[in-house]
Structures are given as structure tokens and as C-alpha cells.
């Protein structure tokens, strides 16, 4: 139940991450007003005590701090500045907290625009920790924004995150998320390669997460995703296309800052191949199947070679060595 004195919050975008985050904010005693493009996704939140809004504008009217967790920069722009967007319910002093991964440039553009047009604050606050962390309330959140805004957002964040760190001004949270995604986006295909090498050389792949635990090759990705990859447990915790979108953003950020990112560049294209095989909506860890025996079959069956009789090449006439 909502407790007295708790900041009224809004939440827009109750997807795989947004819904469990909203549930944790409700559990923490905050009144939360919610909106989602497809309505059925908000039902569990309504059951837990959330209030329904008919539009992002209505969320903004009801809440002091409006959280967003949508797909990309274009979707953020749509819910904030589009018809019936947040801006139509805006009031100076209110704050938008954007948990979507949009890249730093979009965060700066959107944040400055909202300040200019409505006097509202902006905190870019992308998250890491996946669906598991969102449900457990143990996410890590990278925040970018004015110090005062970030501090106003902080109290509620203890219900959804284990860590909430201000990384700098608007955009710095997004840049930190890019750093995070470089490692995630390159590690998952790398683990796939590792499993393939082990398997092809007779090592029991199932033993690897345990034996590598605590060593230099250990990682949360190995322990959580790696084990699922080995078991082919592809229950969706995220979508491959989201990761590829992030990698595209990273490449753009690197290009703008003149930072060479060869491994990321190559990994992005490996992911794109995975998408080409019809996996855009799959959990990204399923990329491991691309590295398994028999996974690479030609789309078109090659024809058997045509036997062409080899014609002897006429030899040039021998030139006699001039006798000395």
C-alpha cells in the first residue's frame, strides 16, 4: 500500500524490466501511476495497487517523478514529446527518469529539450542486472543528470537497485551502459566459442561453469547465462534485437569519440548474422546454437560438382638450349 509522505511516481513501459521494477516500487510503499502501449501488460501492476493512466500525459500529471523503460530513443521521444506525451502533463520541477537504453546523444537531446520546453529535470538511468535483477530488486543503475535531480530520484531507487551511482551529467549514465553492453555483447558469443571448443575436443561442457568459478575467466555472464546456454534454457529474459540495437549505438558513440572498437565491431556483425537466422525476438543467449554441430548449413543445397573432362593443355614447343 502507498504510504504517506512517499513521492508519487509514474512508470511508463511495463515490459520485461519495467513491470518487476514497478512492482518493487509499489512494495516499497510508493504510489505508482502506470501506462503501457499495450494495456494487458499493466494488469499485474494494477493488482499490486498501481493506478492506471490513460496516457503518458496523465502519468505526468499524477506523478512528481516519471520513470520510463521503453525500447529506444525513438520510443522515448514518442512517449515524452508525442501526442498525449509526458510534456502535455508537464510541470516545472518534475523529473523524467529514463531507464531505456538510448545512447548518450539522444539522452542529452531529449533531456535538454524537456528542460527548455517544460522546465523539467532529466535523469538518464539505464540499468543492468537483467530480468533476474529487476525481480529481486538488485539492479545496478547508472545515473546521469544534475546532482540535485539525481538525489531526488535516489530514495525510491533503493527498492529496485542494489547500486544507484551518479556517473556525471545527462548522458553519462548512457555512456556507462554502453561500457556495460560492450562486455555483454562480446562475452556471449565468446562463451559460445569456448563451449564449442570444449565440446569438439571431448571436454564435458557442463563442468565448465563450476570449474572456472572464481578464476580469471569467471563472470556473472558465465554463471547466469552460461549455465542456461549449456542447458538450452532459452526462456526469454531479453531480446537479441535489443542487444544489437545497443551495439549499434556503441559503434556510433565510438565513431563520434574516435575510439577504435574492433572486437565490438566484429561482434555486432556476428549478432546480425544471428538475427538473419530469424532470431530477433529470441533471448540473445540462443546465439550459442549458431556454434553447435550442424548449425551452419547452407541455405541452398550445393549441387554436386559437375565433372568436366580435363583437356590437356598443349605444351609449348621445347626450345633447344643453345649449345655452347
Amino acid at each position, binding site marked *: 500500500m502507498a504510504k504517506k509522505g512517499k513521492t508519487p511516481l509514474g512508470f511508463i513501459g511495463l515490459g520485461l524490466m519495467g513491470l518487476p521494477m514497478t512492482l518493487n516500487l509499489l512494495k516499497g510503499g510508493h504510489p505508482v501511476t502506470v501506462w503501457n502501449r499495450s494495456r494487458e501488460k499493466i494488469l499485474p501492476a494494477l493488482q499490486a495497487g498501481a493506478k492506471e493512466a490513460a496516457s503518458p500525459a496523465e502519468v505526468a500529471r499524477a506523478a512528481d517523478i516519471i520513470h520510463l523503460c521503453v525500447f529506444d530513443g525513438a520510443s522515448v521521444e514518442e512517449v515524452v514529446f508525442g501526442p498525449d506525451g509526458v510534456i502535455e502533463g508537464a510541470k516545472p520541477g518534475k523529473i523524467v527518469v529514463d531507464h531505456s537504453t538510448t545512447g548518450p546523444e539522444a539522452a542529452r537531446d531529449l533531456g535538454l529539450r524537456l528542460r527548455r520546453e517544460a522546465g523539467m529535470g532529466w535523469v538518464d538511468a539505464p540499468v543492468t542486472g537483467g530480468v533476474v535483477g529487476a525481480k529481486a530488486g538488485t539492479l545496478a543503475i547508472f545515473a546521469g543528470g544534475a546532482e540535485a535531480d539525481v538525489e531526488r530520484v535516489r530514495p525510491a531507487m533503493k527498492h529496485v537497485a542494489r547500486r544507484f551511482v551518479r556517473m556525471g551529467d545527462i548522458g553519462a549514465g548512457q555512456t556507462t551502459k554502453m561500457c556495460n553492453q560492450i562486455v555483454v555483447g562480446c562475452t556471449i558469443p565468446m562463451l559460445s566459442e569456448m563451449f564449442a571448443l570444449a565440446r569438439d575436443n571431448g571436454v564435458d561442457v557442463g563442468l565448465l561453469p563450476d570449474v572456472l568459478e572464481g578464476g580469471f575467466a569467471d563472470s556473472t555472464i558465465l554463471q547466469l547465462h552460461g549455465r542456461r546456454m549449456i542447458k538450452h534454457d532459452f526462456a526469454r529474459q531479453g531480446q537479441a534485437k535489443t542487444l544489437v540495437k545497443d551495439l549499434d549505438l556503441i559503434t556510433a558513440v565510438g*565513431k563520434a569519440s*574516435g*575510439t*577504435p572498437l*574492433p572486437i565490438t565491431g*566484429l561482434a555486432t556483425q*556476428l549478432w546480425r548474422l544471428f538475427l*538473419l537466422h530469424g532470431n530477433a525476438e529470441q533471448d540473445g543467449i540462443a546465439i550459442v546454437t549458431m556454434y553447435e554441430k550442424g548449425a551452419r548449413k547452407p541455405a541452398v543445397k550445393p549441387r554436386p560438382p559437375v565433372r568436366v573432362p580435363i583437356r590437356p593443355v598443349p605444351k609449348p614447343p621445347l626450345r633447344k638450349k643453345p649449345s655452347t
Partner: protein
Amino acid sequence: MGEKVAFIGLGVMGFPMAGHLVKAGHEVTVYNRNAAKAEAWVQKFGGRKADTPAAAAKGNKFVMSCVGNDDDLRSVILGAAGAFAGMDKGATLVDHTTASADVARELAADAEKKGLGFLDAPVSGGQAGAENGVLTVMVGGKETTYGPAEPVIKAYARMCKLLGPAGSGQLTKMVNQICIAGTVQGLSEGLALARATGLDIASVVEVISKGAAQSWQMENRYKTMLESKFDFGFAVDWMRKDLGICLNEARRAGVTLPVTALVDQFYAEVQQMGGSRWDTSSLIARLEAKKTKQ
């Protein structure tokens, strides 16, 4: 027979290309953002210059453009002072900029509405090709528009071909750049190994350039690559612009370009080494052993 032609954009490519039009007997008016360049061009080739793209375009049957990128292109073609505003109905814009296929389609549609012709016609062959008038021109657009334009383009082209509807020229140029990126990296690696193992590289190239490894890059660049001579040719900055276009188009088309993406990042390293203006063959500079102090 001489035509009335305007040329917009007198960079390292446009400057000599517009000159070839004069030499071929056409009546040429030029526009350049930096007016001093236009003045220098008039001094060298005769012809006239104008103060805006619209003024340059006015009264000409053909308007050629060759500028930096999509945004530059929109700025000289669209708007009140842009070329489209000055062109007479029935005139044709031939764009030699390497740009996205999207902007080509956009301009083609806009031209159609205004009763103008449009051809996207990016070129290959570099500065030397432009100066010697032996460029390869890859064209997209309508056949009826292309027919009359071809003889004019031929003033600076050895090869000119219509490849399909609007955007096809740009797509072909992308294919060209993708092939170059992979080829130059392969050549760099081959030469690096040849050098490190003490082979006589001139002999190596003499032999393998008669076989399956032969390429334009090998024949025209191996010597300068070995001499670490890169202060000429097609700049890395421009190559990265082009590869960016390729990678964007591939994303749209759902195609994976692993080597192109990797080489694009290698070029970022070359930029960091100070090679923004170096020729694309400078990929080999990344592979050189670091000189250690004795």
C-alpha cells in the same frame, strides 16, 4: 555538341571533373561553397562562376554535383538557394557525391515532382582518375534520363553504366567500397608477412599478381605501402564515411558485413595514429612492428 552544364562542388574530385567538361566543349558554370576555389577554377579553365547553387543551375540542361555527404548534398540541392530551385523543367541533376541510397531516392522523388531528372552517379577512381578523366561512374535512375546525360558524363569517365532505378548507383558504390576494404586489409597482411620473413617483395608481387591474388590495390599500392607513403590518394576519413554508409545500408537490408565492420574499426586506429588524411592503403601501418629504442 556542347551543352550548358553547371558543376556544384569543386573539391579534389569536382575541380578537375568540371575542367574536363570545358575541355569537351561544354559551356560550364561552377559553384563552390568556398568562393576562392571557384575563382581559381575560372582562372584555370575559363567558364563562369555563380554565387549560389540555384544561380549556377539556372538555364543549364545538366547540373552536376560532387560534395561531401548527405547533409552537404541536401544543403546545395534543396531550399531557396539550392540547385533544384534554379533548374528549368526538363533539366537533369547528376549527383557524383558518395551518399546514402536513401538520399538518392529522396532527391529522385523530389525531382520527379518538380519535373526534373535525377541520377545518382557516384564515382570510383580517385583523384588521379578525376584528373585524367578516366573515372568509373555508377548510375542509378531512369533510362530516359540517363541516355542524354551519358555523353556529358563521358567527359571525365572511362566507364559509365546505368545499374537500375534511383539509388542503384549509390548501392553499387557501397559494393565497391566493401570489396576495397577487405582487399586492402588482406593485401596489408600479406605484405606484412612477406616483409617480416625477408622475401623479395617485388618478385613476390610480380608472381602473385599474375594469379588469383591479383588486384588493383596490389598493382597500384604495394610499393607505396612498403615505403609507408600514405600522403596521397583517398583519405581514411572519407573511407570511414563511406563504410558508415555501407554498414547502415546493411543494417537496413539485414545483411551482415563482419570484415567491413572490423576494417572500419581498424581505420579508426589509423585515425588515432594521425592518419585521417592518409590513403586507404595505410591499413598496413597498423601492422608494423613498433620501433624499439636501442
